[in-house]
């Protein structure tokens, strides 16, 4: 029992630590964005790596507290979402360096962590009927998909900002700080492809889990309908991009809308 209390304490401290470290990373990225000094970017990246390590440790501590993969409560899901976004960003090696991408992504990560900090951190063991190793696999795959779609969202936002500068013909603050439209569009297509693949895997494993837990692959409950909507929104984008060549502003818009749908369903359904 005493051990459990200690673990609680450690877990709590880790979470607070993650918040502080990620905030620092975020602030450094913003300073880099404003001053454009490369040394600061190096620092910001290192701090973000530290944040990732602490996030991983927090998830591990939660695992020991809960007794199963900690992705079932709202707090855990949002936290894992943030972790997946961080991992996706740090693992991201793109042909072109996407200038100042880190600034936008770190803001998203911090926002997610902030949301997680406002949710209940109570430990709720899942009902025995739902226990199956399909569940964590399904949730992890879906959240990793969301991580990549989150990157696509940041890229889309940057695309719209840069496009607005170019279209208005008044080159302002963002023009020199943001990468080329082409780089952002390729980023969009890459993240979309990877994210959608994970999303499909998440859907399939989800229905396996449902089959095991309740005997049927599909029940048309709100959660499933929402997932289906998300899947369809991204399916349309993928289809349009690779058949008629949707790109640029419209694609950026769609990526942003898709991500908004993800956030809304996450909020509505899991809460």
């Amino acid at each position, binding site marked *: 029992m005493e051990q459990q209390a200690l673990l609680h304490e450690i877990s709590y401290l880790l979470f607070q630590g993650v918040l502080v470290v990620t905030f620092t990373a975020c602030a450094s990225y913003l300073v880099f964005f404003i001053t454009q000094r490369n040394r600061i970017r190096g620092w910001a990246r290192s701090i973000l790596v530290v944040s990732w390590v602490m996030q991983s440790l927090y998830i591990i501590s939660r695992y020991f507290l809960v007794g199963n993969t900690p992705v079932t409560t709202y707090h855990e899901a949002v936290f894992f979402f943030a972790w997946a976004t961080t991992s996706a960003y740090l693992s991201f090696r793109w042909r072109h360096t996407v200038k100042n991408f880190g600034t936008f992504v770190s803001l998203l990560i911090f926002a997610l962590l902030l949301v997680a900090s406002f949710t209940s951190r109570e430990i709720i063991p899942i009902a025995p009927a739902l226990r199956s190793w399909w569940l964590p696999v399904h949730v992890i795959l879906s959240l990793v998909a969301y991580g990549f779609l989150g990157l696509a969202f940041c890229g889309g936002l940057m695309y719209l900002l840069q496009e607005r500068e170019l279209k208005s013909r008044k080159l302002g603050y963002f023009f020199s700080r943001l990468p080329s439209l*082409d780089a952002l569009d390729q980023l969009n297509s890459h993240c979309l492809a990877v994210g959608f693949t994970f999303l499909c895997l998440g859907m399939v494993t989800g229905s396996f889990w449902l089959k095991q837990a309740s005997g049927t692959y599909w029940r048309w409950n709100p959660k499933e309908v929402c997932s289906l909507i998300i899947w369809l929104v991204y399916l349309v984008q993928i289809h349009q991009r690779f058949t008629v060549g949707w790109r640029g502003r419209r694609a950026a818009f769609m990526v942003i809308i898709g991500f908004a749908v993800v956030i809304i369903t996450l909020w509505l359904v899991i809460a």
Partner: protein
Amino acid sequence: MSEKKITLLGVNHKSTPLAIREKLAVTDGYADALSGLRTISGSLETYLLSTCNRVELLCVSEGQAGYDDLLKQYLFRDAVNLEERNQYSYLYHDSEAVRHLFKVAASLDSMVLGEAQILGQIKEAYRYAAEAGSTGPLLNRLLHKAFSVAKRVRSETGIGSSAVSISSAAVELARKIFGDLADKKVLLIGAGEMAELAAEHLVGQGVKSVSVANRTLSRALDLAKRFNGEACSLEELHTQMERVDIIISSTGASDLIIRSADVKPLMRARRNRPLFFIDIAVPRDLDPTLNELDNVFLYDIDDLSQIVEMNRGEREQEAVKAQRIVDEETVKFSRWQQSLTIKPTITALRQKADEICRQELSRTLPKLDLNEDDRRKVEKLASVISAKMLHHPLCYLKSDSCKHSDDIKIDTLRTVFGLDDDDKPKG
């Protein structure tokens, strides 16, 4: 006391009208000009730069009187009379010369502030001078320092980062739209000079091909040949627009050549690949509403000039930062140059002491009847005494205590030890 003096004499676009600069410019290669410069009496090291905006001579001499006039005579020959020479040229010595060279290399003295060409020109001029054996230790060091100052200015300030000409602004925009230009195709409509210049810039950035459409096909062919591209007639515009990425229009037509309605259906066939229109014709060739189409970007001459104007202002602000770097590096160089003059003093001091020891030993030893072992002991004694005597003077020379008065220190030591009396016969 022989002190090396750095002298810089030059004319540039600010000081001298073009009509005179033309006459001074080196047109038949650096080799002859450099050898002429070397023959001026008193020249130790020489270097010469000649571009369309400036002619500059940079020399190291022994600092004798009248050297500056010889340089002026060499630079102006008979092109300008004596009174005008002073009015048109600028003459700097030592740290002022160093500062000027750094400023030129960092492109703070250029017509277009921050342009990158000048550094290449200086490097080339230096290469000639070095190959001809004109430069020595001081100028080698100075010019290498100038290169690194220019590099530092470029990386630490934004002086060269934004476009300040119409064509470089077009390139900058193309880069922000397409990223890599290596697989992009350019189409010129009309064969105007401005379009040619912009196309040249884009070719410099590595675009894949340039094709030219013009009312008179022969002119189109000429221009296309220059860029290794193909020529086409204005009727083929439509099919061309499907495959190119950047279109620069500069015809003399009084009406619009490409309308929004022409391009809209094209975008589907292009699979929405972006299209960048640059309209440098007056009156305009391209429909202003083109800009409203998705993935189509249109800039006309006014938009581009506005960008250029804005960037110029930015560069001027950055130049203040750059000037600070130049000042800093000038001080560093002067300090180095001073340390250089301490070293010969130290060697001279040691030589003098050794000389005295040797003289006295050779005078005294034959008079004494010593065996080999004792003889060596006496020799050792002499050299230890001289070394100990020199210890403090040498420390004083090397010390940081009075960094800014090195000249005085060296002068004092040289006088006290009578070093210059010995040097006199040599030079």
